[in-house]
């Protein structure tokens, strides 16, 4: 540590007793260091009197209303995030659930295809999935629910028209 920084540390009460005595002795002997010490002391004293005194330029009600709104918004955000966090581990099972749902639905479709030409919907029990088959479009779509219960398509099967129909 330089002598100048030690002078400052002495002024700020950051030196131990031995170092403080050494600096005091130095200041007594050295006019240059004494002058610097004096300048630092004046500045320190001047700053102490100079903290900013400003009042908030908004009314109590307006200022509080903004804080209250922000707190409510944060709490709402936290409340919606919490269930998702709690069920976070379930996310690992969604791809597997989706695949299982698709396989099951394909099985259902191939095993019990309606031949009457109308669109059919199949909701396998105990499965968070919905399938949709359009005979007219020759297409099946499987929807699997995400953790929020929203359904989205995960796969589709388009069947070629039977050879005989061509």
């Amino acid at each position, binding site marked *: *540590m330089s002598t*100048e*920084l030690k002078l*400052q*540390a002495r002024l*700020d009460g*950051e030196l131990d007793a031995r170092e403080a005595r050494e600096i005091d002795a130095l200041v007594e002997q050295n006019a*240059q260091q004494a*002058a*610097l010490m004096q*300048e*630092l002391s*004046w*500045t*320190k*004293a*001047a*700053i*102490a*009197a*100079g*903290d*900013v*005194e*400003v*009042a*908030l*330029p*908004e009314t*109590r009600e307006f*200022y*509080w209303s*903004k*804080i*209250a709104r*922000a*707190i409510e918004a*944060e709490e709402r955000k936290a409340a919606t995030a919490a269930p998702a966090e709690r069920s976070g581990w379930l996310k690992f099972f969604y791809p597997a659930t989706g695949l299982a749902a698709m396989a099951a639905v394909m099985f259902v479709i191939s095993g019990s295809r309606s031949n009457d030409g109308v669109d059919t919907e199949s909701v396998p029990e105990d499965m968070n999935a919905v399938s949709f088959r359009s005979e007219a479009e020759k297409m099946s779509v499987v929807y699997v629910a995400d953790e929020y219960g929203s359904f989205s398509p995960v796969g589709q099967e388009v069947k070629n028209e039977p050879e005989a129909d061509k």
Partner: protein
Amino acid sequence: MAKAIDHKTAPDVKLVAASQAGNMQAFEELVARHRDKIYARAFSMMRNEEEAIDLSQEAWVKAWQRLKQFQGDSSFATWMTRIVINLCLDQLRRQKRTRAESIEQLDEELGGVERQMPIIATNPSQGLERSELRKRIDKAMNQLSYEHRTVLILHEFEEMEYKQIAKVMNCSIGTVMSRLFYARRRLASLLQSLKKEQQS
């Protein structure tokens, strides 16, 4: 059942306890009591009214969320001030510094600039009214870089020790000391210039 408290007259400790239990009216009273101080600290660091308002509000929201962490080791006002200081420092770090400050930082990095400054032989604040001195200090502080201004604020106004400042500012104690030294010497020089300007 919890006893109702008179928010206007209750001490901070009781209002804090009530707020920790979820009483927003008690928290509103705390905001009303300390909002000027918290805003003033944000303003002293940011030197910008709008940013100071936003950051002081953010500090209150953070305080509400972290109230359970407040153990009463310091006063509520001190705890709140630490929150707003940290938010201001984060914001200042994010912001790109202005050219003037870069030059000042460069001066500091080049080393020893403060050692070359002539020592001020007469007290530049002597004989000044308190209000006039405050104005000059404010003007001079405005000309310091945020790192130098912050180190002065934390040391002189928040009465933090070197090691506490180093922790808050995420730098070494040596850096705190050299920044403080530079800031004081520069401030003395600026106050001297302001005094000369006034006299001429």
